[in-house]
């Protein structure tokens, strides 16, 4: 199973001399990580917006740590002084909960049906959709 995390990276407050090497850093990011850094000359800032897909999903923590390590390693190789902001978020915010049985309250069947929910009365329940 796979899962996705959204990554945002800002590299700001670079030294004026470092601006010349920013181009080399952009190339290194593209070569080593396959990500394209965007350069904003007005704010002397580099930014990255990307979604990272990890397979298996259980390895997400290790993959994110590795990514952070790579970013620090790459940036430290090219820039002298800088400020780095790195943000990670899950791509799906879907979450919630409900008590079991509410599905019947919303169904066209009478609410009393819930009292009959035993394996002996399976035919009274609404048709069963396929379980993924």
């Amino acid at each position, binding site marked *: *199973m796979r*899962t996705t995390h959204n990554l945002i990276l800002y590299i700001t407050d670079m030294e004026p001399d470092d601006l010349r090497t920013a181009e080399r850093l952009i190339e290194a990011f593209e070569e080593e990580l396959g990500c394209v850094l965007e350069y904003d000359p007005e704010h002397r800032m580099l930014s990255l917006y990307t979604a990272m897909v990890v397979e298996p999903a259980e390895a997400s923590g290790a*993959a994110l740590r590795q990514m952070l390590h790579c970013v620090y390693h790459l940036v430290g190789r090219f820039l002298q002084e*800088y*400020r780095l902001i790195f943000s*990670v978020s899950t791509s799906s915010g*879907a*979450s919630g909960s409900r008590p079991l049985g509410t599905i019947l309250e919303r169904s066209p069947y009478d609410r009393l049906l819930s009292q009959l929910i035993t394996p002996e009365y399976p035919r009274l329940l609404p048709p069963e959709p396929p379980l993924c």
Partner: protein
Amino acid sequence: MRVWFTNFFAREVPCTLEISVTLEGGEHPPQLVDFLRKRADRLWTNPDGSMLAVFIREFRLESLQQRLPRFLRALELRLLRLGACRGTLAWRPAFAYNWSLEGWGCSREQALEHLLRLQRN
């Protein structure tokens, strides 16, 4: 482990959700327990008899809004058919990491210089 990057705004990315079922009460029908043992990814039983079953399932972000309610409905109906009475169905992103870091950095050469300066002082 395989890692690849895609568009930040892509809708077709895979996302993994954790769907958990909490069953209250001490005794549960054997067919219900059997179903959970076979189909759930993790299953815990507390000393008071209540159970927690976790299903880890992959969805795609673009179709999540249609597929997740269908999955929840199918699971809930199956549980009710098997005799589940009181309990809760919950869902949330699995392996969720939400954090941000902010820091100042310098090159390795500069870090070394700072260290040497400190040693000299």
